[in-house]
C-alpha cells in the first residue's frame, strides 16, 4: 500500500494540519460506551480493530513525514526529550530491530530492510534515508540505535526495564506528549510515574496492570487507548513548553471550537523485547478536530455524552475544565439522544461535508 504523505503540515505556529476523509474514518475513536471511566482496557495487539489504525504493529499514516520533521525540530530545541540510561543498550537494539522489521513488513513500498548476518541495510524512502551498519555495533550508526529509529517513527516511545518485580522507565523518545515530562520521570518505577493520575490508584488499576505487564510475553504484544483534548493540532504539549501552549485554552470561542479543539487519542502498545527483556511502550498520538469527528454520526453523539457526563476529577486531570461546557454545547445539536450501539467502528464509509444538526 502506498500512502500519500502530506509533508508540508505543521504542528505549531500556523498549524497547517488537517485530516483527509480517509484519515478521519481511520481515527482510533476511544469510547465504546456513552460513559468513560478508568479501567485496565488492555487487549492483544493483533492486526485488526475498529478502524485500519489497528492493522499494523506500528501505524504509519498521511502525517508521517511531517511528524518526523516536527520531532527533529523539538529535539533541536530540547535534546532532553530523548534520554537513554546506560544499562539500556540491549533494549535500544531490540527497539531498532522490532521497528525496522515491522515497518518493512507492513509498508514494503516505503521501507526496506536487507540483512546478511549482522550486516544490515535500512532504507526509509519517505525520509530519504539509506544506511548500512553492523547490528550490535552502535559505532556504525549515525545516532544511538534507539534515537536513530524513533526519529523515523510516529508517536512517542519509552523503554521499561524490568527488575525487583517492577518496571522502571529508563529510556524514552518523547516529543508528542500529553503534558508529561520524560526528563522528570526517567528512572521512576511504575507507580511513581503514574502518581498524578486521579481515581485509578484507588480502583487498583495500576496494581493489576503492573502484575499483568510483568508477565507480558515476547510475541504477544498488547494495546490500549488513552485520550485527552488539545487546543490546536499541537503535538508537543509538554510541561517544558507549557508557556507556549497553555494560553491556547483561552482562545476558544463558540465559533472556533469545532475547528480548534481536537480529540487527542493515544494508541498505546506494549511489546516484550526479546534480547533485553525490557518492555517497549509505544504512544502513537492521533489528533482530530471535534468538527471532523462529528461528521461520523456515532462519534459525534458519543463524544457529546462522554464529555457531558465526565467525572469532574478526570475532566480536571485531562485539562478540559475551562472549555468542557463549550465543547458540550457545540456537540449537543448533533445528538438526538437515541440509543447507540456499543463499540467504536464508524459504521459509515463516507463523510458528509459537515455534521448536520438533528431533531431531538
Amino acid at each position: 500500500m502506498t500512502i500519500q504523505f502530506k509533508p508540508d503540515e505543521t504542528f505549531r505556529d500556523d498549524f497547517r494540519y488537517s485530516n483527509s476523509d480517509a484519515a478521519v474514518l481511520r481515527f482510533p475513536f476511544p469510547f465504546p460506551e456513552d460513559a468513560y471511566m478508568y479501567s485496565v482496557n488492555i487487549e492483544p495487539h493483533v492486526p485488526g480493530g475498529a478502524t485500519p489504525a489497528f492493522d499494523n504493529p506500528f501505524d504509519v499514516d498521511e502525517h508521517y513525514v511531517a511528524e518526523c520533521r516536527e520531532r527533529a525540530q523539538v529535539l533541536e530545541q530540547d535534546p532532553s526529550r530523548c534520554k537513554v540510561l546506560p544499562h539500556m543498550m540491549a533494549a535500544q537494539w531490540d527497539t531498532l530491530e522490532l521497528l525496522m522489521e515491522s515497518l518493512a513488513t507492513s509498508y514494503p513500498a516505503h521501507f526496506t530492510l536487507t540483512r546478511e548476518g549482522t550486516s544490515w541495510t535500512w532504507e526509509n524512502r519517505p525520509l530519504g534515508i539509506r544506511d548500512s551498519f553492523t547490528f550490535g555495533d552502535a559505532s556504525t550508526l549515525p545516532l544511538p540505535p534507539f534515537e536513530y529509529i524513533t526519529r523515523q517513527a510516529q508517536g512517542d516511545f519509552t523503554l521499561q526495564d524490568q527488575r525487583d518485580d517492577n518496571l522502571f522507565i529508563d529510556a524514552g523518545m518523547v516529543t508528542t506528549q500529553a503534558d508529561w515530562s520524560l526528563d522528570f520521570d526517567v528512572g521512576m518505577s511504575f507507580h511513581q510515574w503514574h502518581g498524578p493520575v486521579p481515581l485509578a490508584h484507588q480502583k487498583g488499576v495500576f496494581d493489576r496492570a503492573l502484575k499483568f505487564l510483568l508477565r507480558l510475553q515476547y510475541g504477544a504484544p498488547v494495546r490500549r487507548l488513552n485520550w485527552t483534548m488539545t487546543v490546536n493540532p499541537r503535538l508537543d504539549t509538554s510541561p517544558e513548553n507549557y508557556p507556549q501552549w497553555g494560553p491556547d485554552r483561552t482562545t476558544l470561542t463558540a465559533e472556533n471550537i469545532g475547528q480548534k479543539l481536537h480529540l487527542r487519542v493515544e494508541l498505546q502498545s506494549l511489546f516484550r523485547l526479546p534480547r533485553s527483556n525490557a518492555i517497549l511502550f509505544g504512544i502513537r498520538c492521533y489528533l482530530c478536530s471535534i468538527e471532523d469527528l462529528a461528521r461520523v454520526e456515532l462519534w459525534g453523539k458519543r463524544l457529546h455524552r462522554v464529555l457531558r457526563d465526565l467525572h469532574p476529577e478526570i475532566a480536571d486531570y485531562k485539562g478540559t475544565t475551562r472549555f468542557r461546557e463549550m465543547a458540550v454545547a457545540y456537540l449537543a445539536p448533533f445528538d438526538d439522544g437515541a440509543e447507540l450501539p456499543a463499540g467504536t467502528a464508524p459504521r459509515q464509509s463516507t463523510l458528509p461535508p459537515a455534521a448536520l444538526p438533528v431533531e431531538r
Partner: protein
Amino acid sequence: MTARPRIMALRVAAAIPLSPTLKAFTFIPADGGLVPPSGPGAHLRLNLPVPGRTLKNAYSLISNPQDRSHHSIIVRRVAGSKGGSAFLHEEVQDGDVIEAGLPANLFPVVRTARRHLMVSGGIGLTPFLAYIAAFEAAGTPWELHHFCRPDERSVFEGLLARYPASKVNIHCDVDLAVLEEVLARQPLGTHFYTCGPALLMDSAIERAAALGWPRSRLHSESFGGAAEGGEPFIAVLRRSGLEVMVGADTSLLAAIEAAGVEAPCLCRGGACGQCLIEVAEGIPEHRDHFLDGEERASNRLIMTCVSRSRTARLVLDL
C-alpha cells in the same frame, strides 16, 4: 479477537553428544529465515511427541546469537524422566523437525548490576553460558562457581575453555562451604544468580541471605512462572446447557470458545476483569490478578482466561 501462542518449526542442524548423558542440539528454522531473537536467561519450550501425548519441556538457550542464525540447547538425559530427555537423546536426529514456542525469559539478567556472581550445578550451567557471553561482550565483571561430578568436569571445562581461568571456578566436591568466602567478598552492586538442583539453589540462597545479602539481589532459575494448564475438569455452562471438557493444557476460556460459546474477554492474562463469570457450583482455583481477597474467598466469581477448578465440575452462569 484472540492472540494464540505462536509455534515455530525448528530443524535439528546438529545433535552432538558431549558425554554419556549430555547432548548439545543446534536448531535452525525449518522454513529458512531467522530464528526469533532471544536474550540471556531465555528458554525454549519444545513440543516433544512421546507415545500418547506431547510433552512441553523447557530448555535454557546456551547462546543468543546476534545474527539469529540458530538456537542451541544442551539436554541432560534424566534417568526415570517423563520421557522428554530420553526422546531427545534417542529419537531425535539431524534434520528432524521439532515444534517449539517462542523464546521466553523467566531468568533475565539484571541490567543495572555492576557485577554478576553465578553459582550453578550440573546442567544448571546452561543459562549461564548465555549470561557469560553477554557479560564478556559488554565488558561487565562476572564470576562463576560451577559444581559438578568429577567425571563431568572435563565436559564443563570444555564448555568454558574460552573464558579467563580467573573467572571460572569448577568444584567437584559436594560441600558448598567454599561459597561462604565467595559470597562474603563481593562488592556492593553485585547480583547473585543460581541455577541447578533445588537443593543447591536453596542452600546457596540461604547462605547469601544469612550473610546479609538483600533478597532483591538473589535470583534463581524457575520454569514455573505463569501457570498454564493443570488438572482437567468439566465446566458446566448453565445458560447454554453445555458441558465442556477443559483439558490439562487448555484454558477454561479457550475450552468455552472451542465449544462455540461466546464468552467475554479482553486481556487474556488475568488483569482486565472482562472475562469475569459467576460460579454457581464448584470451587475455582484463582490465578488472576483482578479479584480481591474477599471475592476469591467467596468462590462465586472466576476469571476464565487464567483460572481453573479445584473441583471436578464447575458450574458457570454462562
